[in-house]
């Protein structure tokens, strides 16, 4: 019986104009967008490759250990095609230096992008589904029950020995099958376009992530279909159901996400928190400065760092970099002697012991700064952003967006993964220095007896997080969407069972 019902409904839906239009428009938009996005991705990838090459070149030119400031680059995410998230918006290049813990707030941007082009909002595949498929789901659903009731066919069907649950289920299954056609075909085409482009290298994990995105899309689609069905079950006339559906759609998709953030979020950053943390950090560095000066004062050999009255040719920097807004405070002390005067040779062991004192002190202070900075950054920047996202999740659109971002790895956590990798790389560099006993070595500051050989230093490599982790991040939202599905279905069932025909 159920099969018969489903077959009837599917045939009914397939022959309609709305079905043809749905397939046509989804395919058109998805293909157009995919082509644009693939081109965009290729450009970003080329920029990334150039940046990696230049930075590698630069790192080979560092002649002393103290010169070891490395730039690491974040590769563009191929799945940003599906949901761009924060992938294009945040910095994609960060400096790794032993005296500073890099974060998202210290990143720079490489690339040839025209920054003014950002005034056009960027569109991805998930956005198309968000807007178009939800609209189509409602268009398929609004007359599912109200229409049959109006025409009187519902009464006819119910005269047979069919349970009402079956009718609902048949309607749901068949409409979903019809809605899946545009969704799956367009996804398939998008993936096909991806695989034909040579610059995309997708592995098995990426396909699992795409499967996750498709699954989430289906669940999202089903939520909107059920919302439409609920409206259809509650109203007597199709015209009313249609109006209500359209306004509900406009509210959930267009109005709510934009209004809620504009209206509710506070615009002032917690300035007192920023100021107090920054003054604490400043104290740390003042202490550092004091100890530094103390050391220089007690020093047996006269002369200031870095020169120590030696006769040398080369370059050096000594500078504090501060930014109160992002709580950045770092000290750079690089020194490169290309040629050293013969007479200054006796002073070399002395400079060695100076750096043996200074570098661990810098490291220690940098780590302590990080201990203060990390919770402050979390509180000042991350917490409000997470609150914003929770507010957005009160609409299924927000949940869908968050879940697909998590699958694609373009959400905040996905981007932070890169910066954790950069922080780990800093640790690797420090370990490497310890390994080579670099702080006490002559090559820390002098390259006159041969430059540092960096070939044994491990290269930076950013591995995207595991699919399991993506799934774990997406799970709360996906399960919320599933719960909404179940609740909506139960409510519709209850209303439909009780309603008079």
């Amino acid at each position: 019986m159920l099969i018969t019902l489903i077959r009837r409904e599917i045939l009914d839906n397939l022959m309609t104009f709305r079905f043809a239009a749905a397939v046509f428009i989804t395919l058109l938009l998805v293909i157009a967008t995919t082509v644009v996005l693939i081109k965009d991705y290729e450009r970003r990838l080329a920029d990334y490759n150039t940046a990696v090459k230049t930075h590698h070149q630069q790192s080979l030119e560092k002649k002393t250990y103290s010169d070891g400031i490395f730039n690491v680059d974040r590769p563009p995410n191929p799945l940003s095609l599906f949901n761009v998230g924060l992938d294009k918006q945040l910095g994609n290049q960060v400096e790794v230096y032993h005296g500073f813990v890099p974060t998202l707030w210290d990143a720079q941007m490489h690339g040839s992008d025209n920054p003014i082009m950002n005034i056009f909002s960027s569109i991805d595949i998930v956005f198309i589904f968000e807007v178009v498929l939800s609209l189509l789901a409602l268009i398929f659903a609004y007359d599912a029950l109200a229409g049959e009731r109006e025409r009187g066919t519902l009464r006819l069907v119910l005269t047979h020995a069919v349970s009402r649950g079956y009718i609902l289920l048949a309607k749901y299954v068949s409409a979903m099958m019809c809605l899946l056609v545009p969704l799956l075909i367009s996804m398939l085409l998008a993936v096909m376009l991806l695989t034909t482009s040579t610059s995309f290298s997708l592995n098995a994990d990426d396909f699992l992530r795409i499967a996750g995105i498709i699954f989430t899309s289906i669940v999202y689609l089903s939520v909107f279909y059920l919302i439409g069905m609920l409206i259809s079950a509650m109203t007597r006339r199709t015209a009313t159901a249609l109006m209500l559906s359209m306004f509900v759609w406009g509210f959930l998709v267009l109005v709510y996400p934009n209004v809620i953030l504009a209206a509710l979020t506070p615009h002032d950053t917690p300035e007192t928190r920023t100021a107090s943390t920054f003054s604490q950090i400043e104290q740390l560095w003042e202490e550092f400065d004091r100890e530094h000066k103390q050391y220089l004062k007690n020093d047996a050999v006269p002369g200031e760092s870095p020169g120590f009255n030696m006769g040398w040719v080369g370059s050096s920097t000594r500078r504090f970099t501060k930014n109160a807004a992002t709580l950045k405070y770092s000290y750079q002390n690089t020194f490169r002697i290309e040629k050293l005067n013969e007479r200054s040779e006796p002073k070399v062991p002395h400079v060695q012991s100076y750096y043996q004192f200074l570098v661990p002190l810098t490291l220690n202070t940098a780590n302590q700064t990080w201990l203060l900075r990390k919770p402050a950054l979390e509180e000042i920047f991350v917490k409000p952003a997470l609150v914003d996202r929770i507010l957005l999740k009160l609409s299924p659109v927000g949940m869908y967006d968050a879940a697909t971002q998590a699958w694609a790895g373009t959400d905040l956590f996905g981007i932070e993964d890169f910066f954790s990798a950069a922080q780990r790389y800093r640790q690797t560099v420090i370990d490497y220095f310890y390994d080579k006993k670099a702080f006490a070595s002559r090559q820390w500051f002098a390259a006159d007896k041969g430059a540092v050989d960096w070939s044994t230093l491990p290269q930076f490599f950013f591995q995207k997080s595991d699919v399991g982790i993506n799934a774990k991040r997406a799970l709360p939202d996906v399960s919320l969407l599933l719960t909404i599905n179940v609740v909506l279905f139960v409510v519709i069932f209850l209303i439909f069972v009780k309603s008079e025909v």
Partner: protein
Amino acid sequence: MIWHIAKRELYDNLHSLRFALTTILLLGLMLTNAVVHIKEHPIRTQKYNASVTESLNVLRDRANNLYELAREGPGLLHKKPSALHFCAEGGEPFLSDVVGGAFLWSTSSGLKGFWRLDYPSATPNLTNIRPNITKVDWVFIICYALSLIALLFTFDSISGEREHGTLRLMLANPIPRHTVLIGKFLGALISINIPFTLAVLMNLLVISMSTAVQLDGTAWGRLGIILFIAVLYISLFLALGLLVSARVSQSAVSLVTLLLIWVTFVIFVPSTLASITGGFSSPMSRDEFRKRRDELYSERWKRYDDYLFEVFEPSKIIQFKGKHVTEEAAEQERLSEEHLMQQVRQVKFARATTQISPAAISQHLFESLAGTGFERYLQFLENTKSYAQQFRAFIIDADRGDPESLHIIGIREGMSQKPVSSEAIPKFEDTLSLSKDFNTAAIELLLLGMFFIVLLSGAYLAFVRVEV
């Protein structure tokens, strides 16, 4: 007779669900918009005023010495925020609101150069981790929400009557068809304008009651034009609704068609098409810009070194140094401007192609009339450019007034070191000019009007040929 039909339509609509929902939705949106604006605008103005004062202080400090002033320049130049920001946000977070200066500083030769404009090339706000949202401005309310509502008001106005059979009844009377069509159009226009006017009035009431935002005469004039464009834009979508409704026989089909047209033209065309056509041209990249800058720099220094190698007369050297720094400044400024202008051209082209969508046209119109967005940004750049010329002319003029000076601009030995009165120095003030805005707006307004006429006559032709 037209009024009779319009009145009937109006009464029909007033009792409908869509009318009630529209009223609630528009009121909610417009009030949010007003509240957000009176909360945010004072912060923006305050920030602008603070930075302008800071720039002025910097200028006053530098007035002690004409040479230093010529070298260090007038400080940062700031873009003035528009009081009509609530009408169109215009992607302002992505556009820089400040233009700085730079000067050559060569430590090896001890030569310091002449001030020049330095356009920003960095991407602003790399650390913004908050979710991206569209601001609830009038562009959003009118171009997005209200256009959808306009379609919902007219999608069944002809096909619905045909389905019910009332169209046959009406046309049985001796009424020409165009009267019916115009009557229906006017009825829908009036009924959609009732909640819209109400919402706009509430919005403006809240904004004008608050002491934080002062709107002057021109601002009200601009608002008037914006409202006129809004009504034209709504009419356009009503005409589109009538056209489709007359063409198809079922209301459901009409609605689906209209919604798909709406999604394509209102949501996708303005951004996707811009991305596509933006890809046609590739402006100078940042790396390329840096490379060319360094090339120019080293070329000029090579010439400098060559000259100093051959010539020994101090007077000639001083002349040459002056020429060196002023030409260097002009050259670098030209390059910086070219870099920016290539980017601007790309955006301009992309914007021009999006004009096939009425939503994009009216968004541009709103932006240029509200004094925000891309056109405003260009105007600001133009202002800074003419100010830079004015500033340089002042420096030369002031230097001429000093008899002890050698009148060689740009280097310490050749210029007056005397203080100048800080009142005499031209100060940068960013201005908005309505006539300039309106010139750019006129063509787009014409285009919007053409769209409307085409759609309305299309609706008429479709309706005349319709078989009842």
